[in-house]
């Protein structure tokens, strides 16, 4: 097992390097943020931008280097730099948004913001999905099964941006009826609020409810179908039939024999779902104004902020790869038929 984990971790390095090279080239080739900045300045000041300023801008953002050179100094920090770049030296590089925008600080704080949103939503969606899947399977082809199936497909079919907007508007109207702003529609917490972890969590509750609900409903449908199919397969297996034939109580058969096995696919899927949601919460974050990693990456891509995009790619890449690794390990832990050599 240890050898397996080490081997998988070592394999992550070329995968991440490949992903970063590909993204770096794509973002760099597709954008010229210096030119865009020059246009913005001239548009705003009504004056021509001095050449010395253009030179300084290019130099500070390393746009006076070739693409391979820029990638190399981003990765290593070796060579003639301003001391603000080089992943191996703990520097993420300058952001085109401005020197007060520290990419490392931004991604680290935003990571927790996204995690707060995604963790609750994913856990809730998995919990509800398991419940709905099991009930559907146990009461196959009943009215309950059809109702749960209908709801599952309904939420699966709803685009998340539409579902988000709908719930957001619903929250506004509920607030109106209640005569108080119980549900906040934008942001992840009160502006400028500071406190310990618990205080921050409590402050974020009015902001958390609606987006969590949206993410949860958007994510639960697929897992519930997965759980239903898995449960049905197990319930029709020989060992479950044998347990029943031996006279074991139905509740015990379900809980101790069927459900335990039927949970394996979902349990192994959970880390993947969580890591996938970390990278995919972009739409929900945009709708509800959570300044998390998803929105950060979207803004960075739109602005052609190469080093910020790279930070996102690296972090989301690591999260996904770790999710896959945990998922693989869980397979071995939960399913005795699988052995790692």
């Amino acid at each position, binding site marked *: 097992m240890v050898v397996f984990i080490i081997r998988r971790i070592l394999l992550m390095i070329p995968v991440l390097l490949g992903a970063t090279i590909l993204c770096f080239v794509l973002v760099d080739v597709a954008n010229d943020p210096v030119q865009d900045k020059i*246009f913005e300045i001239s548009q705003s000041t*009504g004056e021509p931008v001095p050449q010395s*300023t253009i030179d300084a*801008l290019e130099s500070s953002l390393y746009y006076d280097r070739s693409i391979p050179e820029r990638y190399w100094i981003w990765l290593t920090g070796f060579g003639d730099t301003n001391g603000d770049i080089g992943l191996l030296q703990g520097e993420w590089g300058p952001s085109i948004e401005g020197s007060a925008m520290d990419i490392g600080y931004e991604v680290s704080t935003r990571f927790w913001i996204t995690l707060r949103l995604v963790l609750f939503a994913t856990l809730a969606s998995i919990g509800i999905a398991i419940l709905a899947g099991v009930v559907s399977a146990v009461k196959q082809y009943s009215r309950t099964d059809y109702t749960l199936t209908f709801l599952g497909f309904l939420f699966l079919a709803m685009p998340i941006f539409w579902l988000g907007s709908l719930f957001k*508007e619903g929250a*506004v109207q509920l607030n109106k009826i209640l005569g108080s702003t119980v549900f*906040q529609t*934008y942001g992840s917490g009160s502006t400028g609020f500071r406190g310990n972890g618990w205080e921050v969590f409590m402050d974020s509750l009015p902001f958390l409810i609606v987006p969590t609900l949206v993410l949860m409903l958007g994510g639960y449908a697929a897992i519930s179908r997965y759980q239903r199919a898995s449960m049905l397969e197990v319930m029709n297996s020989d060992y479950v039939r044998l347990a029943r034939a031996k006279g074991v109580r139905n509740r015990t058969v379900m809980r101790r024999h069927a459900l335990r096995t039927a949970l394996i696919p979902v349990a192994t899927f959970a880390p993947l779902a969580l890591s996938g949601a970390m990278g995919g919460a972009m739409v929900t974050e945009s709708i509800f104004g959570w300044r998390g990693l998803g929105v950060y990456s979207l803004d960075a891509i739109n602005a052609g902020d190469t080093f910020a995009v790279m930070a996102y790619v690296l972090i989301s890449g690591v999260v996904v790869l770790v999710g896959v690794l945990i998922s693989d390990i869980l397979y071995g832990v939960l399913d005795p038929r699988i052995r790692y050599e």
Partner: protein
Amino acid sequence: MKRHHKAAVAALACTALVLAGCGQGEDTSSSSLDACLTDPAGCNGGERADGGEITWALDGSWGTWNQNTSEGNNAYVSMALVGLWPFTGQFDPNGEYIVNEGIFARAPELVKEDPVTVEYTLKTGANWGDGTDITVDDFIYHWYATSGDASLCEGCDPANITRGSQVESITGDGSTVTVVYKETYHSAEWQYEEVLSEPAHVAEDQGFDWKNDPKEMAAAEDYFSETIPSWSTGPFKIADAKVGEHVIYVPNEDWAGETEVTLDKITFRVIDGLDNITTALRNGEIDGASPFSVNAETITQLQGTEGLEYQVAGGPSWEHIDLNTQNEFLSDPVLRQAVFTAIDVENIISRTYAYVQSDIERKGNHLFRNGSEYYTDYLSATGQGTGDIELAYDLLTEAGYEVEDGVLHTPDGEPVELDFRYSESKENRRITGELVQANLADLGINVELKSIPDADLGTVLGEGDFDMIDFGWSSDPVFVSIASQYWETGSGSNFGGLSDPALDALIAEVNGTLDLDEAAVRANAAVQQVVQDAYSLPIVDTPVAVMVSDRLVNVRDNWASQQRAAYNIAEWGVEGE
């Protein structure tokens, strides 16, 4: 689950969905912002209560705190720092210049014309909010930071050096600061020049020997870029802030201005997207916003919401269609004139901007806003923008163009084909392109519409990768250097590559007088010439909206200020009983 439990769950789910669909309330037919049409600088006025808090949304973010630098040249940081920044003054919505009452005792005075010498008189007690008075050193610091001169600031990247590079010397005597400009400086807008930015004493306290070492000067600028301002020369000071996200202000007790500040707290917070702003406003999460865009859906939402007021008017930028004079076809001024004549601007306006601003007018002058004392419409008489296909056709046939099989051919027999470029997220520009395409099809010109990813507009313009393009310039009451930027041969912002020696000569004259009225006359002569060149066709001052809670007073939009509605932040308040 029992039947009545199921019913309850279903009812709850349906309630949320149904409520979501019934968001429209009664229309608010009158608004105190309506008065802004006739009284732009006094509308929505009223008695203010003592105390209160306001949360104001900004529709974009920023990445630095120093507005001197290229990266700090951002409308949103300018708004976010409006409570503390040492402006020389502000234009009000009437276009009248009001000198900063917290810093200056009176308006700057021109004490000598050759070389231009301007005297500033500091107000007694004008300070940085930390017990330190504003001094001549602060004027010198700003000069060095914006000089573009490596011997004063090595490695600085100022956004604008037009004024800083023209300063010869700055001296102080008590509360009087005298700025002497170089012989080459002749701007009629000398009184509007910004002369202060960052506090010199803070740079010194941080150990930067900015006066004697140009590298230290640049390091001080970097420090101010990365550091949340702890100082203030305005009516408020920062209590808390995060770059690109929010600024929370509390009153600055040391402010030397006379306007009474009544609010206890103002929060500027970034909310991306117009939909999010209107929803947050309707939900009571914010009290107002003056975003840089508006659409018909927003207006509908605002109309249906009680307790909110809004006004739509021409904002701080203007839309125009530019032609690329380096294009093989458009290098011919006759074709350019015909193209502009065939475009029906009124039709474009009625199908785009008029949906959000019913009283919108076609813009008739590139440099002066409709209604300005210097405004003259030089376009209508030429036929440009009238959609007169016959006139356009006559112009072309006289010049030897011919239409064969419905396709316009040059005198050399080449079919004329053009592209029209626009930012992909700007719906109105896309529609404009489609209407231009239809107009020019009547002339036999095939126009291909090509959208531009928003982030690439600067690149496309800089590379001249267009035949026709629709984009915006900021409209500002200052005009002296604008013509040079837009149209002078070789200017980095003359994207369509116009080169007209007659126009260049007129532009040079604009900057050759200290008399503002005379400069305006000369600027208008340049406008006339550029109309003859058929280079740029103005459409409208782009409509923007200000939307505020009806409990706020003295909050109104201001097209003439980069800070928009926040230009008079000291006067903002919550309505008194």
